[in-house]
Each structure stands twice: as structure tokens, then as C-alpha cells.
């Protein structure tokens, strides 16, 4: 086999493979725009918002959490927009889920304007600060279930 034809074959294979990966990446990102939507995006989605399984991000409004066993009701806020969330999953939300924390609710947006979540995840800040003196550091290891 000529050295040249091998080179051409390898080049063609490389172009095809890299091209496919790029195509899949670009179309994938466009189709399912992102891992989560903001409250503003959810509210401007129109009818599509009610038929899709979504993940919505926001900050937990202080004082809005009402726990009921493993379930909870709370309000997510993002730039002045509010979203009422009803969480009815089987696991209690994580310990980091509390007032002002960034949270992700996974579920369906109802026509009643309430987001029915089957999962609640906390999203951590990228800023690490020491616990203030006098303030008791939280014990994450306990993973205590709110009862």
C-alpha cells in the first residue's frame, strides 16, 4: 500500500469522526439548551413549559420553606421573579437546602402555576468562606432526616 493513500484515509477518517462529534455536540446543546432553565425562561416558554420534564434553578426565598415529612413547599426567586414549588419526592431534600440557598427543582410545571417537583437538588456556591466564630459549624455528615 502506498504511504500516501494511507495518509489520505487517516485524514478522511479523522475529519469524519471529529465532524460527527462536533455536529452532535452543537445540535445537542441547541436542542436541549441547558441542564436547567431559569424562572424567567420557564415563564416565557408558553405552552411548552407544561409538557416537558424540566429542571428549574433559583434561590430559596427566606422563610418560605414549609416542610411536611420528606415533602416540602417553598418559593424560588430569581431576579424578582417567583416560582412556587411543591416537592413530593421520596427522599428528604439535602441539608444544604435552606433559606437563600441556590436550589434546583426537577419536575413538571403545572397549569396551576405551581411547579411540581419530584426531586430537589441544592447547587453550591463557588465561594468558600470559613464559618464565623461563635456560629456552630454545620455537621453535614449526619444527613439527618427532617421529621
Amino acid at each position, binding site marked *: 500500500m502506498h504511504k500516501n493513500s494511507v495518509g489520505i484515509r487517516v485524514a478522511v477518517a479523522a475529519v469524519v469522526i471529529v465532524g460527527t462529534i462536533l455536529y452532535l455536540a452543537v445540535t445537542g446543546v441547541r436542542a436541549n439548551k441547558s441542564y436547567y432553565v431559569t424562572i424567567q425562561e420557564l415563564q416565557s416558554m408558553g405552552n411548552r413549559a407544561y409538557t416537558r420534564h424540566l429542571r428549574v434553578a433559583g434561590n430559596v426565598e427566606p422563610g418560605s420553606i414549609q416542610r411536611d415529612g420528606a415533602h416540602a413547599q417553598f418559593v424560588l426567586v430569581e431576579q424578582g421573579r417567583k416560582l412556587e414549588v411543591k416537592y413530593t419526592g421520596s*427522599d428528604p431534600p439535602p441539608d444544604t437546602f435552606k433559606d437563600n440557598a441556590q436550589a434546583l427543582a426537577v419536575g413538571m410545571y403545572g397549569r396551576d402555576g405551581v411547579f411540581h417537583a419530584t426531586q430537589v437538588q441544592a447547587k453550591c456556591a463557588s465561594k468558600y468562606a470559613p464559618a464565623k466564630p461563635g456560629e456552630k459549624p454545620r455537621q453535614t455528615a449526619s444527613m439527618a432526616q427532617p421529621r
Partner: protein
Amino acid sequence: MKKTLSIGLPLALVLLSVGFYQAIYVAPTEATMGQIQRIFYYHFPSAIMALLFPYINFIASLVFLATRNSNPPRAQAADALALASAEMTLIFCSIGLATGMLWARPVWGIWWTWDERLTSFLMLWLIYVSYLLLRRFTAGGQTQTLAAVLSIFAAIDVPIVYMSIRWWRTQHPSPVIGGGANSGLDPSMWPAVWWNLAGWFVWGVMLVTLRYQLERKRQRAQQESVLQALAAN
């Protein structure tokens, strides 16, 4: 190999011991996450090394591909380095995944999610698992060449892993180090980061060196047995 061990091992152990002391006893308890945040001092260095060592593998693989016909002895040395760094990458990648999952469960509420960062990092892990499987289970003379080509895919994946938390919205936090205004570490947390980065780097370089020397020995032994078999005929 004795020299590598007698210099590398004590150095790595000292750095990692100071790192452990800094991470567990000196660094302050984090305000919102509590004690569990200390896993950061292991998660971050391992993940950084898992993005660094693939490039040793990549460069060694390129040298192998370029010299495999023109300079076989050099190509074999490059291939030994490629194998050693690939194994090390898989170890760091595994530690990064494991510490990440242990950290995610209490603070995110989930062990795993398919966001861009986690998925692209898992891809890196899978690429190196397949790299090592390929090296072990393929027959014939093309093993080293195929493995070297596979390492190119890893080199493409690494920048995607690094940029994923900048390009896309992810569950994984945006960069803590080198991030924007609302990110960063308290100054009192930096020593734990530096000592552990240095410690894991030295540990990784030492293991790669040892593994490289071992692979060279294996290559020489194999060559000798081939020559002996030829002479016997």
C-alpha cells in the same frame, strides 16, 4: 528505580502529610457546607492531575506515532511513558469521580447527574479504561499505534472537561479558582490547596517514573527472549 523511590517516596509522603494536616486540622470549617467541604482539598488536586497527566500521555503518543518507523528505540521509550501516564491518569480520574460523588450526595442531594462537567469527565475516565483494555487485549503488532490514536481523543476531551463549567450551566459549581467575582477561596484555605497539589503531583510523577522504568525492563526482557528464540532456531 531505587533512586526514584528513595527520593520520590519520602518527598511525596512529607508533602501529603503536611497536606493532610492542613486540610483536616488547619483549614477552617466552611460556612455553608461544613466539614464535608474538606473533601475539596482532595477532589480538586486529583481532578487537576487528571487533566494534566493526559497530556504526558498525548505527547508521548505523538512521539511514538512520529518515530515508530524512523526510530523504533525512541518510539518504544515514548510508548512506555504513554502507558505509565495513562495508568496514572486513570487513578487520578477515579479519585476525582469518587470524591466528587461522596461530596455530591450530602450537598447536592444526589450521587450523580448527567450535566456537562460530570459527563465529560466520565468520558475521560472511559477513554482511559478503554485505552488500557485495548493495550491488554488486542493481538497483533498494531496495539501501540491504536492506543496512541485513542490518546488523541482524550486530549480533545480534556479541554471540554475544563471549559464545561464555563461554557454551560451545570450542576457542578462554576470555577472556584480562577472564577468570577462571586467565587474564590478564603485566604486561610489556600495552604491546604497548595500542599495537596504539590503532594499529589510529586506522587503522580514518582509513580509514572517507576512504572516507566518497569515497562522499559519488560520491553528489554521481551526483546531478549525474542533474540534468544531466533538464535536457537
